[in-house]
Each structure stands twice: as structure tokens, then as C-alpha cells.
């Protein structure tokens, strides 16, 4: 299926851009008239994926983060978050709740949040090349849009 609308954003992996990235996706999705809960779910999932690029993919370096948000005729929203960072060695292990490789206070729940707040989650990664996270959510149809 081809998207009926699609936006792309890119920005450097500075933590000051976390808020911008999720607000930007939410503002795009808003044209579908989602519920407040759906919008909060999407913002949270995007925040997790973007934070992972900043914290894990590029670590102390600054690299670019790429987001594509697509809207489909059936009310599905698809969000792709991509980095060209270090990549993930064992994706299955990385996706386990509470698993984290980061020092400090990462809870190891990023993927768990994406998984439970969105309807679909796919992770593609290649060590040394980068990681792409694709998430989908089906919004509840509204009577009077």
C-alpha cells in the first residue's frame, strides 16, 4: 500500500532535539485526529527510539538521526527511525525487557515501551553500519473527522 502523506525529518543526535523529534511526529499525525492517548503512545515510542540513537548508536559522538512518518489510507501510521551508528550485535537480546548495555540510569525498557505502545515493531541492524526501527500503529477511526 502506498502512503497518502509522508514527512521526513533529520537532525543531529543532540539530546536537546529529543523533544523536537517527538513533537514533530505528533504534529504530523495530528491531521488524522488521533485520541490523546494514541498521540501520547506515539510520542513516547518515538522518544524511546530517538533516545536510543543518541545514547547507544552514537554514544559520545554526534551523528544524524532520520525519521520518516507515513500515513496510509487505512488509518495506519508507520514511523521509521534510523541511525548510522554502532549497530546492535544481538537484536533479540537487546529487545528483552530490562536488558541494557548502558551505564547510568537506562532502564532497559526502550524496546518494551515501543512494543507495547505500538501495534508493530521491527528492528534492523548491522554492526558498524547502523540501526533502523520501524513501528506501526493503527489509529481508531473517527466518526466526524
Amino acid at each position, binding site marked *: 500500500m502506498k502512503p497518502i502523506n509522508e514527512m521526513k525529518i533529520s537532525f543531529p543526535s543532540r539530546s536537546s532535539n529529543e523533544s523536537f523529534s517527538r513533537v514533530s511526529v505528533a504534529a504530523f499525525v495530528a491531521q488524522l485526529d488521533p485520541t490523546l492517548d494514541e498521540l501520547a503512545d506515539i510520542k513516547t515510542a518515538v522518544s524511546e527510539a530517538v533516545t536510543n540513537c543518541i545514547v547507544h548508536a552514537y554514544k559520545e559522538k554526534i551523528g544524524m538521526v532520520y525519521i520518516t512518518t507515513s500515513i496510509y489510507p487505512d488509518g495506519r501510521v508507520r514511523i521509521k527511525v534510523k541511525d548510522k551508528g554502532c549497530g546492535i550485535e544481538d537484536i533479540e537480546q537487546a529487545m528483552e525487557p530490562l536488558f541494557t548495555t548502558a551505564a547510568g*540510569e*537506562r532502564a532497559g525498557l526502550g524496546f518494551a*515501551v515501543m512494543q507495547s505502545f505500538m501495534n508493530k515493531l521491527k528492528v534492523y541492524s548491522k554492526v558498524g553500519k547502523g540501526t533502523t526501527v520501524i513501528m506501526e500503529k493503527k489509529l481508531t477511526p473517527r466518526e466526524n473527522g
Partner: protein
Amino acid sequence: MDLKIESKDNAVTVYLTGEIDHHRAADIREKIDMAIERIRPPMLYLDFGGVTFMDSSGIGLVMGRYRAMQLIGGKLIVRNINPQIKKIMRLAGLEKLSVMEKGGVTNEAN
């Protein structure tokens, strides 16, 4: 952004506001830990009433303060969490640590 930290009797209450993400968590963490260090209260309340957004960075924040309070033999209670924040805290299994105040949920959901 400002953080209101109130110390009364045997308890410290932190009023969190705005958006809690990885970017802001470091600063919030530091301010709370300074208060714990200085006052060493038996009780720490984290009040989420003013929080408009939270991702899993907020979980790290709560877990870290939970451990800090354990170290000084104190307790942590999380209060005024809206349904969206409760969803994330449940995902993290925080109710098993009984840090979530019973009946302390704002709004309808449970």
C-alpha cells in the same frame, strides 16, 4: 526548568513538572540526589502531578531514587501519576516494589 523540592517533618517531596525525557533526566536526578544527600529523609515523595510527558527515562529516574533511598534506609513513594505514566510504570513492574501510592492515580483509569 525549575523543580520544587519541599522538606517537611520526616519527608521530602519533589514536584516534577513538564516533560521527563533523557535530556532532562540528568538535571532532575542531580537535584533530587543533592536533597537526599543533605537531608537524608526517611521518606521521599515524587509527585508527578505536573508532568505532561514521560518516557522510560522516568523509570530510570524512579529506580535510581528507589535505590538511593534504600541505601539510607528510607522509603520512596510515587504519587499523582496519570494513566499514561502509570502504563509505563506498570510495564517496568514498579508496583511490585510498592512505590506507587494506592489511590494516588489522577484521572479515571486504573
